[in-house]
């Protein structure tokens, strides 16, 4: 009998088959409904933005990996693509190509690779990119073309760029409320916000229902847990309800705050970013409440009409602390008699 040698590896010898890139692509998949709605609403323009942001995110990731002497093929692991895709979804549909590319650069190089790449970045890269652009280019980043449906998309074929600059612009619902709530409030219907076919806004944030579909998919697949989205949305809802009861003419009803702006995409897809969110359940709940609180404070009393990006980035800074102070007691330590 001949002697066989066997491969040696450490236990366990089986695996559930999950992988980082599968997770990332799943999140990207969950964002697709929102992307489809945006293409319906903004036409080829949104395809342009999403393609450029995603493509250049992957490109910069490969570049950075090369410069860091890593395997550049890791740029296809889905994390860069997800960052780029998320960034694209937070931009207004009319922004110019240069701005998109700069956003991808900041997101991947400045916010992620400079800190050590995947798993090491303290702040959400896509949001860092977006906030950088918002501060750098306030005018283009707050110019919102009106969504004009599929008919317009047909017209855009062939001469998308010239049409883009001529697009009709308008205020986002949140900006309109911020300027003069009394005049604007009666004109905005919640169902428009919910389905998102008529309201101006960022590419990915207009349709609440599409985002909810994606968010529920993530919850069902257990890719994210309920703690962050539920606590963030609930906080916004409760505070919006209180202010609405105090002065209904000035403060919109809670559902308005839920479906307008980027609360849903932020709470489900950005605040839950693994790398930058706390990992323990209690920390996640505190994190979510913080995000909700800061969002609604900025919306109601801050200088900007929308505050979810800032809220998430600020809370990202608290993640290490939350991780440290919310560790649940390990198995059996409750039984342990403490000598004191």
């Amino acid at each position, binding site marked *: 009998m001949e002697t066989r040698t066997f491969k040696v590896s450490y236990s366990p010898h089986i695996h559930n088959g999950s992988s980082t890139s599968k997770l990332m692509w799943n999140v990207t998949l969950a964002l697709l409904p929102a992307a489809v709605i945006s293409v319906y609403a903004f036409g080829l323009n949104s395809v342009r933005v999403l393609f450029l942001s995603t493509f250049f995110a992957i490109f910069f990731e490969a570049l950075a990996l090369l410069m860091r002497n890593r395997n550049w093929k890791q740029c296809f692991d889905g994390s860069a693509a997800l960052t780029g895709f998320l960034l694209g979804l937070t931009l207004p549909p009319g922004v110019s190509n240069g701005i998109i590319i700069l956003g991808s650069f900041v997101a991947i190089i400045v916010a992620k690779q400079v800190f050590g790449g995947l798993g090491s970045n303290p702040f959400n890269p896509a949001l860092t990119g977006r906030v950088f652009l918002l501060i750098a280019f306030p005018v283009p980043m707050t*110019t919102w073309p009106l969504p004009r449906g599929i008919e317009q998309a047909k017209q855009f074929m062939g001469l998308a760029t010239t049409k883009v600059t001529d697009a009709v612009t308008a205020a986002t619902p949140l*900006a*309109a409320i911020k300027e003069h709530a009394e005049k*604007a409030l009666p004109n905005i219907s919640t169902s428009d916000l919910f389905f998102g076919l008529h309201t101006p806004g960022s590419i990915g944030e207009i349709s609440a229902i599409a985002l909810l579909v994606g968010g529920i998919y993530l919850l069902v697949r257990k890719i994210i847990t309920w703690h962050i989205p539920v606590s963030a949305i609930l906080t916004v809802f409760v505070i919006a309800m209180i202010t609405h009861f105090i002065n209904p003419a000035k403060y919109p009803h809670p559902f308005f705050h839920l479906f307008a702006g980027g609360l849903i995409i932020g709470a489900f897809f950005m605040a839950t970013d693994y790398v930058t969110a706390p990992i323990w359940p209690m920390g996640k709940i505190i994190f979510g409440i913080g995000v909700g609180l800061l969002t609604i404070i900025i919306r109601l009393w801050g200088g900007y*009409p929308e505050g979810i990006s800032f809220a998430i980035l600020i809370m990202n800074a608290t993640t290490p602390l939350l991780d440290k102070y919310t560790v649940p007691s390990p198995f059996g330590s409750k039984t342990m008699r403490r000598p004191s």
Partner: protein
Amino acid sequence: MKNVIHMILTLSIISALAAAALAIGNRATKDAIAAQAKLKAARAVLKIYPNCKKPEEKQIKTPSGETITAYICPGNRVGFTFSSKSAKGIPRPYSGLIKMMIGIDKSGTVNGVQIIEQSETPGLGAKIAEPSFVNQFVGITLEKGNLKVKKDDPSGMIDGISGATISSRAVTSMVKKALEFYKTSLISQIGPPKKLSSEKKEIIKVPGKIKKDIRNIIKQNKRKRKQRYPVPDSAKDQMIKEGVR
């Protein structure tokens, strides 16, 4: 003990020398610093009225009680500084204080506006100091035209700076208040118009470049008006049009 005395002595000598040096420095620069402060205002007047080389100066009081200098130029034209705190009812600027030099002639027409001090966001609100914005006020009176930013009131005459509505609104309101102040109280403070023999019609020479600027702005505004405000087709569009961005 000897050490302590040594220390005290050393520090005293050094402080005394420093005080002496500062006194000399202060004397050397005092006049120049005072001149600079005046020069700044005078230069702004000169920009509005290029041939008002030697204006008559008069101390006047603003509605909020501060004392400012009015520069009275030939032709009964007055330049005076006006800040965002000089009158009540001016909306707060985005950050800090805005101070401007405004030139008004006896018919109550704005001849020019110069921003002397401001601390608005660079690149956004700071654009209020650029000619393309302030030259919009040239020729405006209280009676004709609606002194409001278009974003707040579609019939307004002033094109706000995009992304800096708050700053534009503050300046527009300042001009309005300055005109009101001119009418209600400034004229009485500076006394009746002097009749000078040399005074006939003084032609204000607008430098060629500014002329060109103004022409361009007018052109641009015409184009913008076309694009920005389409005919609304529903109540919602009406709302959106009035909205901010």
